[in-house]
């Protein structure tokens, strides 16, 4: 059974049809590349899965049960985690503080609990080690490289029992060496049995790490096939509209 199944999903903003009748399914342990030009509807689609928008039409099912998300918190509760394009990091806080932002560990009872620094440093350190990242829990994010910052943002998704990770342009603004680092992080998530959606403009990244590619154009899904059965040339054609459908 598919982990997440979208059936005939549409999203309208007034007269604008941002996403039009899209169906797709995500499998556990699979990386799906989501490609398309600016305004093709990728972000809108992902924001519906993340609970930012509610679909105008269509249904989402998770492991067979209907999935209704009112707020981003609901998505998180269902094991859907997002790595935002701008990473959503606070430069003035440590790596560990950023990993646990909004879900701080505490000692004590109820509203009077105090922050459990030791436990948060320890857990963050374990996650960075698992991710094979050199990021250190006590370092301020301000002084980190692009790859380390990505690791911090990705580490967040590993705190809870995430099942689906949505990554929005994770390699857009970092150096070539760090891109390899981030792609390894993505493979690592896949090997742990997570479903990963990788939104990217970078063809080489998608073709090196994804198992499947979905192409969107003007709000519609125009292709959904195995990476092995496609090629960068075909995908480019699909994105620009030179190829109508595949």
């Amino acid at each position, binding site marked *: 059974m598919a982990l997440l199944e979208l059936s005939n999903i549409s999203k309208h903003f007034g007269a604008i049809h941002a996403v039009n009748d899209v169906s797709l399914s995500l499998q556990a342990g699979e990386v799906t590349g989501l490609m398309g030009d600016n305004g093709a509807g990728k972000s809108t689609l992902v924001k519906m899965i993340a609970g930012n928008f509610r679909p105008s039409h269509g249904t989402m099912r998770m492991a067979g049960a209907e999935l209704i998300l009112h707020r*981003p*918190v609901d998505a*998180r509760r269902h094991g859907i985690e*997002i790595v*935002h394009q*701008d*990473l*959503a*990091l*606070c*430069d*003035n*806080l440590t790596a560990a*503080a950023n990993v646990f*932002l*909004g*879900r*701080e560990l*505490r000692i004590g009872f109820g509203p009077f*609990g*105090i*922050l459990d620094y030791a436990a948060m*440093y*320890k857990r*963050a*350190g*374990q996650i*960075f*080690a698992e991710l094979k990242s050199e990021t*250190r*829990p*006590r*370092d*301020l994010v301000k*002084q980190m490289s692009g790859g380390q910052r990505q690791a911090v943002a990705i580490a*967040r998704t590993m705190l809870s029992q995430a099942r689906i990770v949505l990554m929005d342009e994770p390699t857009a603004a970092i150096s070539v060496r760090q891109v390899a680092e981030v792609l390894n992080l993505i493979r690592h998530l896949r090997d742990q049995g997570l479903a990963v959606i990788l939104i990217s403009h970078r063809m080489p990244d998608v073709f090196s790490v994804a198992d499947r590619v979905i192409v969107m154009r003007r709000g519609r899904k125009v292709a959904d096939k195995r990476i092995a059965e496609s090629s960068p040339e075909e995908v480019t054609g699909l994105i620009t509209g030179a190829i109508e459908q595949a």
Partner: protein
Amino acid sequence: MATTIDQTIAQKQHSWLTSITNSQTFWVVIAVILACVFLSFATESFATSKNLYNITRNFTFVAIIALGMTLVIITGGIDLSVGSVLCLCSMVLAVTMNAGYGIEIGILAALGTAIVVGLFNGILIAYLGFPPFVVTLGMLSVARSLAMVASNNTVVFQFGPDHDLLLALGGGAWLWGIANPVLYMIALALLTGFVLRWTRFGRHVFAIGGNEHAARLTGVPVRPIKVAVYVISALTAGIAGIVQTGWLGAVTTNIGAGMELQVIAAAVIGGANLAGGIGTAFGALVGAALIEVIRNSLGLLGINAFWQGTFIGGAIILAVLFDRIRNIRQSE
């Protein structure tokens, strides 16, 4: 040799010593100490117990409000209304007690007023998206005007049945000869420091100042926390107002005028960053202490009091200058 995970976790960016010498608060403490040493030798009247008692008591009012202001500044906001809120709360206390109510009722009324003002500021800023500067500038005018309305612009110096208790509360020295306002300041500073370092609320205050958008995306309740910091800021102004009323023994509608500048100066000199994300409770105290020592020393050294503003303003600019230099060095 491979490093173990525990070593990685324990790894810090800076040693204990460099992190201290990198902090602005440390250098301000040094400045305060140097100034005190210099003044003890340069003047005969500085190191007298009477003068030191005066200094410690004088700077407490600014310091108490600077604690609340520091929270606001850490979130990236500003509260210009504190001087007027101090005046309004003092006046509410004075008028209530003058009308024959007990001190408990008076204090509750004053703190209630502070909470209402803080909620008003906070809700406009957090929920309606007003710039903090505009809302609190408006409140600066409104609160002082309301104080005049409440008292009909008279001086209140009769505080009803609990008159003596109020004066003792603000003017007394209940523990080891330390002025009461100093005790309140220390208690509030410890509380603020604890909240900032050890509570989820404090962590979120820093997160909002560091990157408000990120805080919102990660599920930090940004709006309620912003409202809370403006309420806390107004409350510290209210508490300072109550204590100052007890100390002065009279309330006029011009107390606290221009105090917002000193409070913001204290927070900034103590290391709070007006861009948000950085600040400490201890810094607020130290900043307030430096300002008071400057003020006091000008008097003792026989420099015309008209120069005060120049020196305090200069100290603010100097503090920010050091911060700039540090940033430039870091970015290189």
